[in-house]
């Protein structure tokens, strides 16, 4: 008799995801959130039905984490989780090492549908693909889209085995040498907040104004905001935090770059590398133009197929070593948190991740007012930025595990001084408080 597990499909964790299950904790959940705000209240029954309709197509997500002898792996399951009403802070701990917890959840609150997913399953791009399909099917079931609409417009990501590919391995070349490692970076001196609390501050800026402003500086929106973010930290170090960097550590940012446009792939697994532009604070003050010039040169040199290969090579090479592969998983679990903090978050001050412009088909977009993305909470980097643009709104979300608002304040005041209209939304305020 064939046992049940024999029939189940399984797939490997991709190169970037392999680290995450070993470092998750209630504080470092590695869960990111993508949410869409509709123009009317969400119907939980229909949302549940939608999930049941699309989950069989997104088999890549319908998995649970299992322990192998050497690595974790994902095993297919057949139960579709229940949608939940939002009650906790965003991006909370998903204990997906437990048997009955899937590595994602779909939650709703009033007009908003949120998809929270562990980074070990997918990255922001994969979350967008899933959300698009979820919205299309949801609006179809509520009757807001007419019957003739093509419900399979995202079939590129549902009917193919390619979503399972580890694109890092696909584009890995053995002979490429790794880039230089970044050095230890400055870290914010703020207190941590209580376990299980996560504060989001979202600044909403008109996308066209932001684009035009960046254009007037002859640069892109990401680079422009990165320059503002760098200047925020430099200002903080000059004023409030002037005594907190006695070692003159550099301010380093972690900028994830989605590789799918450069290296064609339909994968729903992680496929990004992190660039780490860094400003040496021991060299004195920087003007905004100097920062911008540095960033322009930095990205100009690195964002091309050849140089990015070096990053891919670095990531994959360490995973390919036999002595690493043959270490039993429990030993890897002990070592990986140290490796992650030593080679990861110790070396950058914060991170800024731009998902770019989200385009929804016309029939969906007229029912969706706003989209937001929140970064996973992390103890190593107290505040992080993720952002996206949709419906002429650029939503810049700070995810923060500290009660201190200094960085957000300086950042948004700067944008305000540049005459951009900023609307702030946050989960820290209570009604009538």
């Amino acid at each position, binding site marked *: 008799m064939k046992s049940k597990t024999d029939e189940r499909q399984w797939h490997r964790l991709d190169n970037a995801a392999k680290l995450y299950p070993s470092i998750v904790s*209630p504080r470092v959940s590695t869960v990111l959130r993508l949410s869409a705000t509709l123009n009317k209240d969400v119907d939980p029954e229909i949302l549940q039905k939608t999930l049941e309709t699309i989950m069989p197509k997104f088999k890549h997500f319908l998995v649970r984490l299992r322990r192998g002898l050497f690595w974790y792996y994902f095993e297919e399951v057949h139960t579709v989780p229940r949608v939940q009403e939002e009650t906790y802070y965003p991006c909370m701990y998903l204990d997906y090492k437990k048997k009955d917890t899937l590595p994602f959840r779909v939650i709703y609150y*009033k007009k908003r549908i949120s998809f929270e997913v562990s980074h070990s399953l997918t990255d922001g791009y994969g979350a967008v693909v899933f959300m698009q399909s979820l919205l299309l099917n949801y609006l179809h079931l509520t009757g807001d889209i007419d019957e003739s609409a093509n419900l399979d417009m995202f079939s590129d990501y549902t009917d193919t085995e390619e979503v399972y590919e580890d694109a890092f391995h696909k584009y890995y070349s053995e002979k490429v040498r790794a880039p230089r490692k970044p050095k230890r970076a400055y870290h914010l001196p703020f207190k941590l907040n209580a376990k299980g609390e996560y504060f989001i*501050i979202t600044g909403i800026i008109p996308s066209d104004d932001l684009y035009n402003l960046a254009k007037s500086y002859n640069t892109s929106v990401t680079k422009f905001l990165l320059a503002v973010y760098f200047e925020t930290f430099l200002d903080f170090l000059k004023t409030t935090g002037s005594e907190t960097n006695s070692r003159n550590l550099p301010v380093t940012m972690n900028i994830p770059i989605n590789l799918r446009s450069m290296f064609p792939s339909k994968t729903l697994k992680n496929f990004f590398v992190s660039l780490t532009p860094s400003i040496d604070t021991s060299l004195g003050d920087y003007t905004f133009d100097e920062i911008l010039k540095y960033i322009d040169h930095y990205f100009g040199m690195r964002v091309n197929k050849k140089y990015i290969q070096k990053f891919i090579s670095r990531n994959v090479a360490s995973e390919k070593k036999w002595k690493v592969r043959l270490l039993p998983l429990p030993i890897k679990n002990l070592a990986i948190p140290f490796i992650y903090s030593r080679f990861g978050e110790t070396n950058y001050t914060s991170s800024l991740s731009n998902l770019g412009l989200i385009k929804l088909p016309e029939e969906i977009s007229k029912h969706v007012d706003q989209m937001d993305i929140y970064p996973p909470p992390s103890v190593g980097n107290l505040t992080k930025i993720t952002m996206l643009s949709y419906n002429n709104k650029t939503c810049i979300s700070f995810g923060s595990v500290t009660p201190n608002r200094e960085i957000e304040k300086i950042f*948004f005041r700067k944008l305000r001084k540049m005459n951009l209209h900023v609307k702030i939304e946050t989960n820290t305020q209570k009604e009538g408080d």
Partner: protein
Amino acid sequence: MAYCPKCGVEVDKNVKECPLCNFPIPDIEGMQENTEINKFPEARNMYIKTLETLRNKVFITVFLLSIISIVIFLTIGLIRSSISDYMTGFVICIMAGLIYLFIIMGYIPHLKIGTGIFSATVILQSFLLDYIDGEMEWSLTYALPITISAIAIFLLTVHFYKKGKHKNHFIFIPVYTAVGVGILSLIVESVLSINFDGTLKITWSLIVFITLQLFAVIMTGLYNVLPEDMREKMRRVFHV
């Protein structure tokens, strides 16, 4: 639309303080009240919930185990009457232990009530243990004064610590503990010596007391006063 006058950012209408700088948002007349709904629920903390479940699980397990052991000890006491006094003693200790666990695990959030129940249990337990053989030997003379003074010192220490509003609890909790334990050791020895010899004689507790007070003074000094002061002196003497 509501704006923060300091940051210049727009906020939702129901927001009363700027999320960035905590400056109160001016309430402009004619502004519609609370037409905008909250974008987020009043979030609960998931971690506290998991912690509570764990705590309940632990307590219930210990509780069930204690019930079983009480039954076993009572049965043994009935069968073997020669050791029944010991068994009664065990049962009293287990029951008291359950109450201690209940308080220590934070089921009674109010500190003073918790401490009150805790001390009542200690006193009752010592009475009962003392009374098993039908005679009161030590509970009134030794246990009662020591328990009462220990609880009093504990409450006073906590009171003063809270009043002190010290920022660094890694420094000041040990300091306050040292002061409290020092005073308690004096009381313990006086109770012992009065009951034993009928006179007040203090030896070892004085050493403990002085050592702990010195520790407290040095810790507080190192943290608060001395470094800056000493640096200044050093500067004066050694400047070139």
